């Protein structure tokens, strides 16, 4: 049933548009992963477990502490659901940028430089792991549970805030992966450093920012503003007061936070690619 040679005409037409080539690559990646059903099923089961364990970490702590940083377990469901859904979606798109040091070391990045398309877009479409959807699904279930269990005043406003938050948070986390990738050009040996703002940022985003001491608050609210991915929106949805100096309308500023991270990402990526010298090969 797998189509290989015969292409329906509408696909060929799509290939003429500017993003056509990327769409074609993505389609083939998705098809390829569905062919090996058993392998895909085990991968997806593994990714689901990863999502469940990450949720268990939050759950055990709130089970013990009851209220942490002004949030109870129900509020923590919202916090975890929003940030983890966005992180899983960003990881689906950009998570494999982690592999850049390996490509550089083996001299394989040169292949991407030879093609007449932006290197970053090629890298982003070079791998597209559907198994990561499993992790997003766990986060989505937690988020929906949180939305049901909390007393939320439903209106167009709240729906708009949730949609805006998930979209902007995904863009923000994707930007962090690009910042990390830009740093990899300098840190071949020290690639683990960038985990501190990709995975560390995601970890910090699942915690109530009010518990952080001031330097960390500044870090996660301003410099690497992951507090916008879930903490501020959770406060706004539940009508809770935030920590001093952080008014509730900040929840609507997630587009600004995402834009700021992409300014960093653009700068870091440009800086990195200009520094790049082939590893040979």
């Amino acid at each position: 049933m797998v189509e290989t040679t015969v292409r329906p005409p509408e696909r060929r037409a799509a290939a003429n548009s500017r993003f056509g080539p990327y769409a074609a690559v993505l389609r083939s990646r998705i098809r390829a992963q569905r062919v090996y059903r058993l392998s895909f099923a085990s991968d997806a089961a593994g990714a689901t477990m990863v999502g469940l364990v990450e949720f268990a970490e939050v759950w055990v702590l709130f089970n013990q502490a009851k209220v942490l940083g002004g949030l109870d377990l129900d509020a923590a469901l919202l916090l975890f659901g929003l940030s983890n859904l966005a992180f899983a979606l960003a990881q689906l798109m950009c998570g494999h940028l982690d592999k850049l040091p390996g490509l550089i070391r083996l001299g394989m990045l040169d292949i991407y430089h030879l093609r007449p398309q932006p290197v970053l877009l090629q890298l982003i479409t070079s791998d597209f792991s559907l198994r990561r959807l499993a992790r997003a699904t766990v986060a989505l279930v937690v988020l929906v549970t949180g939305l049901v269990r909390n007393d939320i005043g439903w209106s167009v406003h709240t729906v708009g805030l949730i949609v805006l938050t998930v979209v902007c948070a995904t863009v923000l986390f994707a930007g962090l992966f690009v910042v990390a990738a830009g740093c990899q050009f300098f840190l071949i040996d020290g690639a683990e450093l960038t985990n501190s703002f990709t995975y560390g940022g995601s970890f910090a985003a699942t915690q109530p920012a009010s518990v952080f001491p001031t330097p960390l608050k500044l870090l996660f609210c301003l410099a690497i503003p992951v507090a916008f991915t879930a903490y501020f929106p959770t406060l706004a949805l539940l009508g809770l007061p935030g920590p001093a100096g952080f008014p509730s309308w900040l929840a609507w500023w997630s587009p600004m936070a995402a834009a700021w991270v992409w300014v960093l990402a653009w700068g870091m990526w440009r800086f990195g690619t200009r520094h790049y010298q082939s590893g040979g090969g």
Partner: protein
Amino acid sequence: MPATVLDLRGTAGVYRRLLVAGFRRQWHYKLAMFAGLFTNCVFGFVRASVMVAAIGATGGFAGYDAGSIGAYVWISQGLLGAMQFMAAEIELAERVRTGDIAIDFLRPVDVQLGNLAADLGRALCTLIPRGIPSLLIGSLTFGLVLPTAPGPYLLGALSILLAAAISYLSLFALTMIGFWVVETRGFRSLYQTAGTFLAGLFVPVHIFPDWLRAIAESTPFPSMLQVPVDVLSGRATGWDAAALVGTQIFWLLVVGALGRVMLAAGRRKLEVQGG
């Protein structure tokens, strides 16, 4: 009989040299170790803030107060590099996948013990640039409480060594699955996530609900992190600490034997394609 004794003596020297080689090899990756320390510290700051806030909100739980929870967080962050959780070793996995392991079988060194010796060397090396600074940074920023008597440190050193060996041998057993399945990535990522959680990295095993704690304690994972942290921080002392180290020896033997059985079975199964 004299020949066997002689053989063993000869091999002991080889393993010692493998251990030194593992240490020296790791010593060259200075930027990598600095990067590891940096990331450990960022996670340490986040974890410590959350834990201290949780202690503040409840007035302490499971016998922890602000000082001892700080010791738990920063010791566990400091040991993380040695325990090889995050970068689940793929060099051996790759050798199993490609069949290069067949070459290792021809060498006069036991595959399991040789790899263990090299990894212990690596683990001991990471304690210098990652373990010690992590404790220093933790005590400067969060003021953790550490024991003042020498006992916990001596037993703690033994416990760390055992934990590093258990963590390597259990990863070794996991890698052996590669003889039967081509891709072990799914298994490894599951091991990494479920393992660090059950080992007590994110929240101490002591605050797990009873059923979850029972699950954790029926696995070797707490022996890789929670136990050395408890012994070193002085949470467990005297006979309690000795009993914990006894549990570690039990798990060392279990995962070691499991790895040996799987290695032997994999060796029979191994089929090297032409070349």
